[in-house]
């Protein structure tokens, strides 16, 4: 690598290896979430095959955690699906920002769609030029896909082998996982108030509705409240 620094395409070479290196780093980091997802999914009553199918086919962490969280709490699968899809609405927004960068059509678009994620979008939009953005998107998407799915399998098999989830505190880890997913999104007054309203409403409704419903209603109420709060200038 160092011997090529003065060659003509060195600028792009350097950008390219930096982008790929970052993509692999993000993939490995996301593996930690995948391990937790696999373990918590089987703890919540999904089979190993169902956990792995979710990671391959759904392939968007927040939604997957939401589905297994609602089911694990005794909610109906339908309420779980609805929560998962509402969390996934943001991926459509990511697609909007990615479309002019990726300029994909046909089969490539169908493939690219599966890789639209928090991580691949962040890596693509952070680049200065279009080809680096495309490389960032594809390399991050693929690295995360491979790591996320391997980690899900390991987590699911591992948790199944470990035994009694309550004695190990695994049920308590679900709340911690949701909080850790929420934490980086609490970036101002609007998100904080939205989060507090959502938590309070969900708990207030819990005794009166079947599990899963309070989460959905609280989510929608909190977004309505959050929309009324002026955005904090950054």
């Amino acid at each position, binding site marked *: 690598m160092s011997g090529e620094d003065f060659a003509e395409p060195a600028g792009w070479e350097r950008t390219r290896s930096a982008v790929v290196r970052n993509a692999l780093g993000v993939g490995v980091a996301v593996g930690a979430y995948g391990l937790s997802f696999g373990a918590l999914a089987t703890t919540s009553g999904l089979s190993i095959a169902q956990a792995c199918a979710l990671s391959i086919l759904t392939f968007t962490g927040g939604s997957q955690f939401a589905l297994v969280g609602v089911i694990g709490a005794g909610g109906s699968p339908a309420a779980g699906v609805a929560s998962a899809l509402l969390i996934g609405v943001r991926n459509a927004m990511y697609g909007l920002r990615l479309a002019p960068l990726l300029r994909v059509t046909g089969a490539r678009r169908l493939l690219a769609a599966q890789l639209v994620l928090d991580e691949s979008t962040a890596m693509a939009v952070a680049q200065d030029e279009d080809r680096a953005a495309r490389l960032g998107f594809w390399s991050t998407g693929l690295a995360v896909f491979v790591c996320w799915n391997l980690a899900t399998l390991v987590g699911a098999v591992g948790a199944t082998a470990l035994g009694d989830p309550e004695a190990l505190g695994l049920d308590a880890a679900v709340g911690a996982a949701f909080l850790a997913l929420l934490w980086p999104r609490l970036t101002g007054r609007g998100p904080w108030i939205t989060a507090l309203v959502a938590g309070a409403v*969900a708990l207030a409704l819990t005794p009166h509705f079947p599990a899963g419903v309070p989460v959905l209603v609280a989510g929608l109420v909190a977004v309505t409240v959050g929309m009324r709060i002026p955005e904090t200038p950054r």
Partner: protein
Amino acid sequence: MSLWIAVLATSLGSYLLKLAGLSVPERLLDSPRVQRIAALLPVALLAALTAVQVWASGQTLALDARVAAFGFAVVALILRAPFLVVVIGAAAVAAAVRALG
């Protein structure tokens, strides 16, 4: 609805959301209002899910070892601990509280 149907429905819906973003004309969804709703939805749902996971037990509210685990998670996140430390540490705290209680 069986678990497999839920898995497949979530997968299909998630994929269509992703594909829609890449496919629809930009002006259709590109209003500040729609973007804000999309940004707040995960905040609201993840917060509601957190609350229910920590304090609800079926349809009753409960104060048990999970609250100690939640407290650990808050402190760990404030200290910028990595995800796995937060999750495994929270599980360990709950297991310890149960073993002692």
